[in-house]
């Protein structure tokens, strides 16, 4: 029995083993979808939502595989995923350094404000750093699921998958 079956979260090694992690050069090019969906469950809306045929799935119970060359990071798949298990990841150049840009689906209140600083949370629910919210696609435009884009240190790109409490508001005010 794998640990994820008893623990409820995947490790980066689990995802690597499944071939779900995009290659480094692709991560540096533009946002790309990473699916953390590895079980045979009857579900295919992500495949149907993809305008680029970038999601491969032979039968309805097959776990989705992303064709990283076809994927444009457009977020259409993550908007409909019932498992909230598709994320957009990007190693973006910012000045002379590299930052991790992650977009997550989010269905709790409050929806964080753009430019606020929040706790960056990993798959186990642990605080691993701070994230700056850089974009918010509001829940009312996506039948209840907000898409939250945040900036984290590059080394946390594959770690952070959730957000916690607001640390500072958009004006830099501590909360």
């Amino acid at each position: 029995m794998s640990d994820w079956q008893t623990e409820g979260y995947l490790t980066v090694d689990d995802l690597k083993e499944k071939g779900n992690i995009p290659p480094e050069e692709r991560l540096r090019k533009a946002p790309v979808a990473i699916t953390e969906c590895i079980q045979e469950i009857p579900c295919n809306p992500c495949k149907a939502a993809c305008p680029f045929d970038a999601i491969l799935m032979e039968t309805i119970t097959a776990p989705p595989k992303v064709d990283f060359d076809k994927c444009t990071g457009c977020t259409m798949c993550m908007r409909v995923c019932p498992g909230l298990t598709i994320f957009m990841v990007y190693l973006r150049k910012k000045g002379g350094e590299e930052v991790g840009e992650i977009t997550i689906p989010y269905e709790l209140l409050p929806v964080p404000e753009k430019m606020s600083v929040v706790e960056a949370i990993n798959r186990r629910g642990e605080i691993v750093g701070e994230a700056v919210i850089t974009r918010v696609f509001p829940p009312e435009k996506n039948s209840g699921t907000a898409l939250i884009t945040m900036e984290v240190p590059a080394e946390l790109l594959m770690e952070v998958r959730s957000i916690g409490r607001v640390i500072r508001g958009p004006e830099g005010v501590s909360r």
Partner: protein
Amino acid sequence: MSENDIGTSRIDRHPILEFHRRKELTIYYHGRPILAYEGETVASALYAAGVRTFSYSPGLDRPRGLFCAIGKCASCVMNIDGISNVRSCITPVRNGMIVEEQKGAGTFPETTVGDYETASPELEADMVIIGGGPAGLSAALEAADLGMSVLLLDENHQLGGQLIKQTHRFFGSKEHDAGVRGVTIAKSMIEKVEASDKVSVLLGTTAFGYYPGGVIAAVKENKQLVKITGKRVLLATGAAENSLAFENNDLPGVYGAGAAQTLMNVYGVKPGDEVLMVGSGNVGVIVSYQLMQAGVRIKAIVEAMPKIGAYFVHAAKIRRFGVPIYVGHSIKRAFGNGKVEGATIVKLDDKWQPVPGTEFDVKCDVICLSVGLHPSYELMAQAGCAIKFIPELSGHVAVHNRNLETTVPGIYVAGDSSGVEEASIAMMEGKVAAISAAFSLGKPVGEKRKEADQMLEHTQKQLESLRDGPFGARGRNGKRKSFELYEQLTGARV
């Protein structure tokens, strides 16, 4: 929360739902005025006002709270306007209503016959459907489309069954609304049913008896007897949540997970502040997530099996918010003075026995049980349908064939009442039952018949694909057993 904190557990803001509260009414609970909103139930109004005890058990006089909140159990029966044994969870509030806790078995009503409607209307339709959940709604729309007159009954005061509580996006195929929230699917089907001139809907009406000659007896609003006959009958009565044996499992605050869902997602009432979830199947994990969306803290999820039962993605959704899941653990006891204040958890060995010395306490005000459901098969048994225990279908069911017809010709089952699965399957089964029923009445004809033939075959294939894969094995095997039993019992080959 003390009983004086009136209204504090009403949810005002929710990430998915909007609660449009209707007219304010007053009901009287042991003489004390309680604020209620038109359209809600006695139980939800009392709960919002902090009431946790609804009845006392016969004999031992133990306090009892809600358990199922959908009219399937007797935990919440109260004296309402002088009548004992009224299910407060499905009885809508009325201004000036007098509500009291019920002691034991209750008393014979002093009200005279004059308060009741003595005339019993006799209703008939091509297709009578008992239960307005996903299976019943889907069957009603299909039957109407195929030219049948439909009478749809539900004992609740709104259509939709459990579908109106499913705030999450559905799994399944895109073609069948996957990625769409259950509440949205429910709204669309209900609107279509209400707009259909072929479908008559009778709400607040409990079908309680199936009499020889195919007469269904029902009681409307607890006041009037209604006699119903249908050329074809679909019993889409759903399922009821299971309890679990542990010390103090009847303490107010121990609820079926679905009851918590009903309170928060239908009536906008927070079930509590801190919840322990027992069972990590899809229901347990999804309801935990929904509780978090309602602003409730999940203290832990315990699971007796050595691994998580739910789809991994559902579990991952709550794990990333830090909710611990204890596999190989169970609840040993609930404790609290008159209501839940906490629970003792214990580790289990590989023979399911508690390991002494591993107990620890969790402070919580609600314990939700998500340990499975069992089909509601009472009407099928009364109607003379062959009933068998099929573990993969989660209990006793009316034996049925691939077209969902039972061993009594003309009586069909669909959805959880025919074996506990999930809502997408229930909707497809409702469709299959309706098409089969129409065909047996010679409807429709011509081009429309060809279309219906194709639809039937297509839907059967869709059902097979949803039962594909490891998670579908249970339903797949259970249904196969039912179909084989049908052949053995009727000698028919379908």
